[in-house]
C-alpha cells in the first residue's frame, strides 16, 4: 500500500516536472568529428537573445515570436572527414531517451539517394507540444536538435524558407 502510494506520488511528480533537456552524451562523437557546432541556450539566455532580436526585421521578428515561450534550445552538429565515423549503436544511444510515452516519433524519413535520415520526435505536454527533438544523420554529418518548451512546428518549418534555406514546396517544383 505504501509502495503504491509512493509510486503514485512519483508518477504525479514526474507528470508535474518541468520539461527538461534531453540527456545525450556527445563525448565519443566530439572526439571523432572534424567540425562541431554547439548551441546551448537555456531559458535566461533565450530571454536575453530575444531582447536583441529586431522587431523591424521580418525574419528576426518571426524568430522572436517562435522562441518567446521556449525554455531551452540545444543543437549539436558534427561533421566528419569520412563516412562511418559513427555507428547505428551511437544513433540508438541518442534515440534511447526519446521513448514513449513521453516522446513520440512523428517523422522518420530516409533517402537512399544521399543516405540521409531525419527523425522528428515530439514530447506531448497537456494538449500541446512540450518539446521537440530531431536526429538527422548523413554519411559524414550528424545533427541533433532539442528544443524544450512549447514549439510551434509550423512556424519553425516556415523559417526553413528564411536565412538562406530554400523553401520547399514539392507542388511548386513540379509545376515548374
Amino acid at each position, binding site marked *: 500500500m505504501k509502495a503504491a502510494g509512493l509510486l503514485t506520488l512519483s508518477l504525479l511528480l514526474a507528470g508535474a516536472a518541468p520539461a527538461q533537456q534531453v540527456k545525450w552524451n556527445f563525448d565519443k562523437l566530439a572526439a571523432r568529428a572534424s567540425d562541431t*557546432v554547439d*548551441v546551448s*541556450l537555456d531559458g535566461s*539566455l*533565450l530571454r*536575453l*537573445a*530575444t*531582447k*536583441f*532580436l529586431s522587431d523591424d526585421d521580418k525574419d*528576426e521578428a518571426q*524568430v522572436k515570436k*517562435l*522562441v518567446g515561450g521556449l525554455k531551452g*534550445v*540545444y*543543437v549539436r*552538429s558534427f561533421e566528419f572527414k569520412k563516412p562511418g565515423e559513427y555507428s547505428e549503436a551511437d544513433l540508438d544511444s541518442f534515440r534511447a531517451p526519446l521513448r514513449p510515452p513521453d516522446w513520440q516519433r512523428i*517523422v522518420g*524519413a*530516409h*533517402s537512399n539517394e544521399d543516405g*540521409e535520415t*531525419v*527523425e*522528428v520526435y515530439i514530447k506531448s505536454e497537456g494538449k500541446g507540444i512540450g518539446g*521537440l527533438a*530531431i536526429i*538527422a544523420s548523413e554519411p559524414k554529418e550528424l*545533427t541533433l*536538435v532539442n*528544443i524544450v518548451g512549447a514549439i510551434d*512546428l509550423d512556424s*519553425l*518549418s*516556415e*523559417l*526553413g*524558407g*528564411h*536565412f*538562406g*534555406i530554400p*523553401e*520547399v514546396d*514539392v*507542388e511548386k517544383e*513540379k509545376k515548374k
Partner: protein
Amino acid sequence: MASFEDELRSALRRREPPQDFTERVLARVAAAPVRSATRMSQPWVRWVAAIAAALLLAVGSLEYRHYQGERAKSQILLAVRIAGGKLNKAQKKVQMVTHRSNS
C-alpha cells in the same frame, strides 16, 4: 692565536660616540624637508577614484551583457536555421512520398 684574540677583542671593543653625535643627528633631522601629504590621502581624490572604478565596472558589465546578448542572438538564429532546415528536409521527404503514392 693569542694575538688573533687580542685583535678581535680590540675590534669589538665598545667605543663611545663623539660628543656632538646627538646634536649632528638632530640637526640633520631638522634640516630634512617635511614631506607633504600624498595626493591619494586627499579625501576628494579617493572619492573620484572610487566613482571612476564604479563607472568602469558598470560600463564593463554593460558591455559584457551586450556581448552575451549578441552572441545569444547569433546562436538562436543559427539554431533555428539548422532545426528549420532539418525539419524542412523531413517535410520534403514526406511530401515526396505522399505525392508519389497519390500519383
